[in-house]
């Protein structure tokens, strides 16, 4: 009964979405207030319907209703509750329902909080959201229906891949989708603006919060995925340039570029058509990612097992949405006249450089990901593009961005004094140079890249601190005055400093863990000890243990450092009988300085066990940096200037001052 309610809710939602997608557009073109206002109501109704469907699906999972085919294929009574819930989005059909739920959620947010938008813009934005929602609902209903029933219902489900039964991975998809779908807001705003024929500073001010929120979520989602891969997959890797990973990274790169170029539109009324293009591209890349993951054209450990028939539908969706919006762009964008001029050396110039490098980076990752597919399609044979390609092409593009970041944050608008800024940064530069030299001296001159990496990290962190210090005139005025200025600083300034500093932390983590990882591979018997970095690990032996839905061999290691006992690490080789598959869980000791990582291997015939022991310096800084970046974004979001009421108050004041121009 409940699955049928869910099914019905989805069908109704499709109709509502179609109405939401058409009526307000006509209303905006003909200036019919009632038709435009329908958009808000439709968005709210659509949200209610979609969330009902989502709740029905979740209910089926929680009570293990195996008469629903989707539940039978992906769940099991023995699974812990958390994973029954996360199992809802751990498969193709369920994840699509999550996708449309978030799409409807964003539409609802505009309906509820977008009261200060001009009615025509609001109507158009909601209409585009509605059309996108309709497309995806159609996709679900016609090719990926999660509510299909099985008759007779099996007594037990086929379970979920045990590798996915993990807290980190449970939340990875929701954050990712908040990001991907969040970019649909920027997309809708861009398309609505092209239809309106107007992009101005106010538009940018409305677009930025949505884009920022989506970007924060995507950052967290990617970080969670990477962190999960690190501790779950058993060899300490955290980024593989896998096609599906790349499919999430490309929208992130484009989204970062978009965030930066939107600033120029907002502050200087320039780079308009470029920003609109980026807004369209960010969501387009999300859609492309969806296509790659679900159509069967790529194989990867990440892909859902789907077939080309679905791929055709999604391709049709892509052509309509992306092709349509880019055609609109080709026709309308030339009419968007630019605003303020600026010199090449200026904050705008730095942001243009930022955009050039980030967009090229995104294009490079896209090229490497799609190249095998394109070559195979045109009959050029099969070629494999792995990590070496991306490391050789992507990393060099990022170096200039990181260097420019610190400088750019201190340049002024329109025309900047580069010499003056560099002068102010000279101590930061010296400090970074010192770090580089010290690292090279300590680690050996062969490690020059790693030394350079740490130097860049210092450059970013110290540069951000200096920029903040400058703003509050630290050490130039009494400390109390500085504190007062700090309290009065716009949140966006704090957000920027935190986010840029966080990038430095991330770079440090990436550099150290890549360059100075220690690895020890040994056959160990109980009582044997191996030294890794500063730690000594003594193997205590292996015992058999049981979990809620698995049986395991657990190896324990006593960890000492300088003679003092630090902790006990345990690594397990688990067997999940329901899914008939095995996983290896590593034992990890996480410290600020790095991770000690122990993995139990196979038993040798003579009773010894093969083990792999690692020390990964500063690896935790990678995810700390990523999360801190998202924190910076959230801090920026809380800036008063993005609050809902502010533009209305400004509009009211202007209306007071010049009543005869009200309504212009």
């Amino acid at each position, binding site marked *: 009964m409940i699955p049928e309610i869910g099914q019905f809710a989805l069908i109704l939602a499709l109709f509502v979405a179609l109405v939401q997608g058409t009526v307000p557009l006509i209303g905006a073109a003909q200036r019919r207030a009632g038709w435009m206002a329908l958009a808000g109501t439709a968005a709210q109704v659509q949200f209610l319907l979609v969330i009902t469907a989502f709740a029905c699906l979740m209910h089926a999972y929680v009570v293990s209703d195996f008469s629903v085919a989707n539940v039978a294929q992906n769940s099991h009574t023995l699974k812990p509750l958390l994973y029954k819930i996360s199992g809802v989005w751990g498969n193709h059909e369920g994840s699509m329902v999550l996708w449309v739920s978030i799409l409807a959620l964003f539409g609802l947010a505009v309906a509820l909080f977008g009261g200060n938008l001009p009615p025509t813009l609001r109507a158009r934005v909601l209409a585009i959201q509605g059309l996108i929602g309709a497309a995806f609902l159609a996709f679900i209903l016609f090719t990926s229906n999660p509510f299909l029933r099985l008759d007779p219902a099996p007594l037990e489900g086929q379970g979920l891949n045990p590798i996915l039964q993990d807290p980190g991975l449970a939340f990875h998809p929701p954050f990712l989708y908040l990001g991907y779908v969040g970019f649909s807001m920027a997309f809708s705003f861009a398309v609505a603006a092209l239809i309106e024929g107007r992009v101005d500073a106010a538009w940018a001010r409305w677009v930025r919060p949505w884009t920022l929120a989506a970007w924060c979520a995507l950052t967290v989602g990617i970080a969670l995925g990477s962190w999960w891969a690190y501790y779950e997959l058993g060899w300490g890797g955290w980024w593989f340039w896998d096609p599906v990973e790349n499919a999430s990274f490309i929208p992130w790169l484009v989204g970062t570029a978009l965030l930066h170029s939107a600033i120029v539109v907002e502050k200087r009324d320039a780079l308009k*058509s470029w920003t609109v*293009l980026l807004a*369209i*591209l960010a969501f*387009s890349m999300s859609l492309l990612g969806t*296509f790659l993951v679900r*159509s*069967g*054209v*790529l*194989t990867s450990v990440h892909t859902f097992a789907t*077939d*080309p*028939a679905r*791929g*055709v539908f999604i*391709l049709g969706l*892509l*052509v309509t949405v*992306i*092709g349509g919006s*880019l*055609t609109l*762009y*080709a*026709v*309308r*964008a*030339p*009419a968007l006249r630019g605003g303020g001029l600026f010199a090449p050396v200026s904050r705008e110039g730095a942001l243009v450089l930022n955009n050039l490098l980030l967009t090229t980076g995104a294009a490079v990752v896209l090229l490497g990901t*799609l190249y095998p*597919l*394109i070559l*195979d*399609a*045109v009959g050029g*044979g*099969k070629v494999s593009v792995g990590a070496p390609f991306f490391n050789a092409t992507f990393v060099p593009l990022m170096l200039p961005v990181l260097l420019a970041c610190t400088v750019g944050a201190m340049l002024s608008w329109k025309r900047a004094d580069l010499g003056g800024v560099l002068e102010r940064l000279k101590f930061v530069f010296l400090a970074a140079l010192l770090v580089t030299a010290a690292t090279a001296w300590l680690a050996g001159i062969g490690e020059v890249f790693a030394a350079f990496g740490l130097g860049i990290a210092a450059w970013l962190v110290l540069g951000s601190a200096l920029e903040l210090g400058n703003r509050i005139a630290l050490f130039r005025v009494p400390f109390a005055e500085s504190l007062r200025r700090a309290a009065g600083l716009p949140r966006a300034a704090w957000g920027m400093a935190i986010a840029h500093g966080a990038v430095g932390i991330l770079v440090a983590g990436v550099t150290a863990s890549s360059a100075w990882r220690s690895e020890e591979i040994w056959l160990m018997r109980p009582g044997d000890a191996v030294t890794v970095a500063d730690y000594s690990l003594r193997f205590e032996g292996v015992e058999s243990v049981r979990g809620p839905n698995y049986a395991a061999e657990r190896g324990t290691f006593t960890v000492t450092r300088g003679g003092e006992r630090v902790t006990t690490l345990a690594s397990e080789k688990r067997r999940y009988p329901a899914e008939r598959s095995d996983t290896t869980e590593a034992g990890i000791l996480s410290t600020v300085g790095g991770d000690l990582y122990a993995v139990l291997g196979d038993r040798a015939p003579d009773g010894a066990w093969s083990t792999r022991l690692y020390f990964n310096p500063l690896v935790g800084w990678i995810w700390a940096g990523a999360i801190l970046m998202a924190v910076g974004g959230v801090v920026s979001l809380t800036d008063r200037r993005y609050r809902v009421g502010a533009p209305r108050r400004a509009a009211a004041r202007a209306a007071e001052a010049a009543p005869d121009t009200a309504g212009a």
Partner: protein
Amino acid sequence: MTRVRPAFVFPVAIFLALAAVFGIYLYQVGIGGKTVAELPSALIDRPVPDFSLPPIEGDGVGLASTQLTGQVSLVNVWASWCPPCRQEHPLLMRLAREGVPIYGINYKDKPDAAKAFLAELGNPFAAIGADRTGRVAIDWGVYGYPETFVVDRTGRIRYRHVGPIMPHDLKTRIQPLLRELGR
């Protein structure tokens, strides 16, 4: 009022070209039957690798590369622990009955298990070599099991099939090729 400027048309042009490629690829993978993950053999049109394998413990004389010239034949890499090998075996039996010479490379198998497999399902092989270490299979570029190669009269490899042979593959790929090579 709309003057088309080339720079603005680039994005949609690039996208449509990409979409066309995706469409072509979907067609190839869907209806065309191409497998995304299947790799072409690096040995097509090259002579079979030199090898000489012993028989499965005391059962025949083994298999050597010299036996693979002079006639059109199939070489099948199989093992008793491989369920898809079990799946395709009846087809191999049928081909053997039709007179196609089939040679087997038994991959990393225990002799007893291999012999039991053949006793149960029948032996379509004119000769079998036991590759206990798997090294000869690597020389053939084998990566998935089972694999079947079509070898022509001059001892060159003309086709490699990865995975169990299904009736569909037999009809559309293997039998036409065998006919073409003069079998």
